[in-house]
């Protein structure tokens, strides 16, 4: 029994090492005063300064943030409505329809969105197509979190509100929304992180003109993993981590719902 437990601990430790060691390496080398990711030379902020002067990178960052803001905003509104609808109407297909994009292999979603945009909508690929694509996979996440929040709630409070004189809109405004707000905020933060670090779907739907941070990083490492890539990756990592922690503060289901 005890041995089994020690074994488990050891296995867990290995898994975590495996997961976090590469991340740690990236962070460490982003401060390394050397062009090569080979040996530690000394501490420097240089690569962050290079980053700030890199126009392509800044442009990609602005794109990424704009898309993430737009996608999380729209996905939060749509996802909240979807979560409410799934909860209210006991239709089997509804949860499947909303949640499938979350579970679907990204490459599949990317390819099908690409075909849809080009062949059906005749859309020129760019910011708008990326935005729509990101909204598509974020909606499901928000819906899951909002629905989980609703599931634990006493249904009769919504009837009680009606009974005490609230119109359906007032019930939403004064009772439903305040109660699901933590989940809505968490869903928005989650959407933001999902959008800002998405690569596969963005890759298919961005076209040639626009770049986002993940796309920019990818195009840079095609040549070599420079310390500059390490620096931007570190920043992205920090942002994502902060968002997830913040989201988890609002709603605990976030930590269970992801991935």
């Amino acid at each position, binding site marked *: 029994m005890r041995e089994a437990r020690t074994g488990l601990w050891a296995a867990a430790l290995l898994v975590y090492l495996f997961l976090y060691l590469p991340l740690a390496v990236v962070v460490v080398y982003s401060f390394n005063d050397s062009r090569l990711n080979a040996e530690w030379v000394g501490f420097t902020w240089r690569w962050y300064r290079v980053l700030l002067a890199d126009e392509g990178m800044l442009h990609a960052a602005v794109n990424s943030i704009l898309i993430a803001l737009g996608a999380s905003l729209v996905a939060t509104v749509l996802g909240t409505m979807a979560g409410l609808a799934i909860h209210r109407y006991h239709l089997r297909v509804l949860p499947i329809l909303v949640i499938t994009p979350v579970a679907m292999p990204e490459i599949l979603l990317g390819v099908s969105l690409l075909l849809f945009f080009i062949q059906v909508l005749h859309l020129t690929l760019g910011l708008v197509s990326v935005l729509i694509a990101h909204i598509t996979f974020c909606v499901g996440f928000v819906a899951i979190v909002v629905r989980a929040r609703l599931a634990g709630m*006493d249904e*009769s*409070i919504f*009837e*009680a*509100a*009606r*009974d*005490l*004189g*609230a*119109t359906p809109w*007032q019930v939403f405004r*004064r*009772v439903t929304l*305040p*109660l699901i707000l933590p989940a809505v905020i968490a869903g928005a933060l989650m959407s933001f992180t999902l959008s800002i670090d998405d690569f596969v779907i963005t890759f298919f739907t961005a076209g040639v003109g626009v770049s986002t941070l993940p796309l920019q990083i990818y195009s840079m490492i095609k040549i070599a993993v420079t310390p500059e890539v390490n620096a931007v990756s570190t920043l992205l990592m920090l942002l994502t981590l902060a968002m997830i922690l913040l989201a988890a503060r609002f709603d605990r289901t976030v930590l269970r719902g992801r991935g």
Partner: protein
Amino acid sequence: MALLELRHLTRRFGGIAAVDDVSLGIEAGEFFTLLGPSGCGKTTILRMVAGFDLPDGGAILLDGHSLADIPPEKRPLHTVFQSYALFPHLSVADNVGFPLRMARVPAAEARRRVADMLDTVHLADKADAYPHELSGGQKQRVALARGLVGKPRLLLLDEPLGALDHKLRSAMQSELIALQRNVGITFIFVTHSQPEALALSHRIAVMNAGRIEQLGTPAEIYGHPRNRFVADFIGDINLFDAEIVERAQGTLQFAVAGLGHIVAPTVDSPGRRGVFAIRPEQVHIIAADAPTELPNRFPGTLREFLYVGDVTTYQVELDSGVRIQALLPNAAPARPQLAAGARVAVAWAGDAGLFLHD
């Protein structure tokens, strides 16, 4: 005119009638109770009156006007839910103030009315607490205050005391009666507890399987149950299959299965079959050889007795094999000191008990 009238109200779920052709009228100021076993349709009636469910047939009239096209929030009635349904994100004061806010009562007046209402339910010190910080009894009182503060024409209460322990329940029963008298709001109260119904109500509708079996005052329901179901459901009672055999000395002779002949009151004629029902407190226990002028007297053996503080109930097995239950107050001076197995006799008056049709 009745304040609320139900006319042939019917609601079916998948072919089964949960509420089956219910008609009744409730007067303004009345404490009216729907009493019946679980699943008999009490909640379904309340939900239709409140507007959360639609009847499949019949009508609901308030002051003579149909409520059919009026949404829940426009009906001048409030509900106290069994689960209390307090808003978890609002303080006690905001919960109670919710209906006033919805009715756009000016803030100053709303504050005053909330404070008054919290005083009435003894929760003035909990105004800033949140529902999760309250005990069951306190939540219940917040729900009650929230239902009353808007001065609805009608308050619907769905087993509001169901979740409380016995002592709190009795205390809340007294408070409910006092509250209802003071505020003068008509109550429709739902319960499956018959002592509670008897203690609280002006009138009771006893329901079974979606229908009203009997409607009357507590004394009528208890003293003159109309059929076997009501007799059996309301309080303890001894029931025996019986047939009227002959009319003699103004009362009737019955042939009672397992008892033989007895004398009992009825308006029915010989030949009629039914049930003879007699309450335990109407059955006397006397010594086996004691003389009595009571016309119905049967010897038997005391099998069990149950001491419950204020009274003792006795199970007597008559020599014919039939069991009968008797009840004596423990304060009664002549209460016999009996042990299980003792030879006794049971006896009752010629005008005690009832003959019921099946």
